[in-house]
């Protein structure tokens, strides 16, 4: 190929990519940032200002929900890691042959259903007229219907359920590549279970742990269905507020500001995760 033909094909291939990334990602996000600094003075005049961001800090309802969403997402991520790790370990290191493939597939099955279907399943199980309540009554452990839905615990159960796959898969992938001699050597040198886990297994699994945690945190922070459908009156999620500003109140300026704040929070957390673990986005995602 001559160099001019090479250049031509580069431009031909680059154009769709640039159109996609500029028109669907960069420009819309920059516009959202711009709108978040616009203050509407009357129906057709706008000025520049930080009023929307001031609202966020002065209205305690906004920033409380923001902090709550962040903290609960962190907690959910850690819980998902704790729940998923033994499973991933079993699939990667203890199961053999067919069992390994079948168990791995079984982890994927729930994710053939959409988030809405999964959440609906949990609602049928947990609500007052739900299965758990009926079973408790049948066993004589409860006198009347028990409401288990519409509280924070229910939300976390649902969120962990939604995140599991994205934790199990990267963990299995990294643990699969580990050399068992390392673990044996750890025991031979007199390490207990705790020491081996802390000094050998966790450091080895770190890339998987980080990529799992980043994806689960992102998904949890940005989730909307599960907190709305399973949460109670006091368990507002930050995405709900963005939705309310845009769709219910038509206050795009405030909604854009809240959106920017959520985006900043998620980017900072992803960046921190990568920095603390010395990973790069390319290694974790690609």
């Amino acid at each position, binding site marked *: 190929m001559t160099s001019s033909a090479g250049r031509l094909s580069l431009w031909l291939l680059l154009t*769709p990519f640039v159109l*996609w990334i500029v028109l669907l990602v960069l420009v819309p996000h920059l516009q959202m940032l711009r709108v978040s600094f616009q203050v509407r003075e009357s129906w057709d005049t706008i000025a520049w200002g930080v009023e929307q961001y001031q609202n966020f800090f002065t209205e305690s309802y906004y920033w409380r929900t923001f902090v709550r969403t962040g903290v609960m997402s962190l907690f959910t991520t850690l819980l998902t890691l704790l729940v998923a790790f033994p499973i991933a370990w079993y699939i990667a290191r203890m199961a053999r042959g067919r069992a390994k493939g079948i168990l791995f597939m079984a982890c994927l099955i729930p994710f053939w259903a*959409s988030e809405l279907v999964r959440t609906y399943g949990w609602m049928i199980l947990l609500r007052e007229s739900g299965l758990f309540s009926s079973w408790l009554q049948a066993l004589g452990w409860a006198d009347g219907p028990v409401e288990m839905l519409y509280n924070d615990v229910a939300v976390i159960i649902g969120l962990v359920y939604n995140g599991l796959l994205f934790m199990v898969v990267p963990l299995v992938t990294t643990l699969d590549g580990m050399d068992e001699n390392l673990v044996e050597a750890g025991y031979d040198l007199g390490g207990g279970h705790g020491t081996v886990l802390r000094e050998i297994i966790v450091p080895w699994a770190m890339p998987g742990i980080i990529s799992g945690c980043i994806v689960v945190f992102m998904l949890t922070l940005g989730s909307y269905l599960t907190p709305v459908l399973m949460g109670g009156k006091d368990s507002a999620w930050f995405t709900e507020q963005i939705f309310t500003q845009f769709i219910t109140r038509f206050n795009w300026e405030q909604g854009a500001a809240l959106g920017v704040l959520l985006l900043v929070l998620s980017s900072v957390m992803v960046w921190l995760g990568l920095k603390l673990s010395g990973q790069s986005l390319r290694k974790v995602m690609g």
Partner: protein
Amino acid sequence: MIRSVPRSRLFDGLYLAYLVAFFVYLALPLLVTAAFAFNDSPFPSLPWQGFTLDWYLADGTEGRTGLFHDDGLLSALWVSCKIAFWVTLASVGLGCVNAVLFERLQFRGKEFLYLLMLLPLVIPGVILGVSILVFYSGTANEVSRLWGLELDMFRPGMTLVVMGQVTFITTLATLVIGARLRKFDPQLEEAALNLGATPLVAWFTVTLPWLMPSIFGAAAMAFLMSFENFNTTVMLTGSDTPLTVALFNRLREGSTPVLNAVALFLMVLSALLALLTLRQNRGE
């Protein structure tokens, strides 16, 4: 904790119990949802009243309307199919081009562009939807106000939903197809060129057939992701609501076994698609 290290009976027992509990936790919500699609009772809850197909087949004459006679849900299903079709077409097409761009060509700033390509994965879906709404719908409003021109395609509706979903599904398609292209032996293509094929012929007869399984896989994934997406879609949808949004609205009014019927229908559909891709990949 590995096979070669002795473990106590108690530890093994506990571990096994945990595994069983975990898989019950995974399966229970879906099994329950599926089962209640056939319960002969107007509410999806116990007690079990017997088996019925009413929630699929009833035509509304006895106060029950099954899924196949529910015009609202059926038209939502059709809207979802149309959206998923366009999203699949666009994102797989873009994914192919991007994969070739990043796996086969060398150019300055490639590393930076690759990071940009990954960006949509680390943006929450709600924000992707909101930003597209703000830019396109806002622009449509401005154009209408300044010049009286109506750009209806940029109002909330199907076009915007397709655009919003293409934003992040393209990244996933690029990763799937790129992973396969990385394993391709460029010598095969060189051989074709040496034997007198033009670059275009070599691409269509050698490289593209090699990529086919990953293109199928990416297409199935794109279709599913689009069909099931809620977070981005809900911000951009207009009067023609897709299935997930229609289901969500119904769910807020109260649940009926028709919702279970739709849920089971969706599960079977996704399972079939997933099995199809698995078989396709195994055949290779």
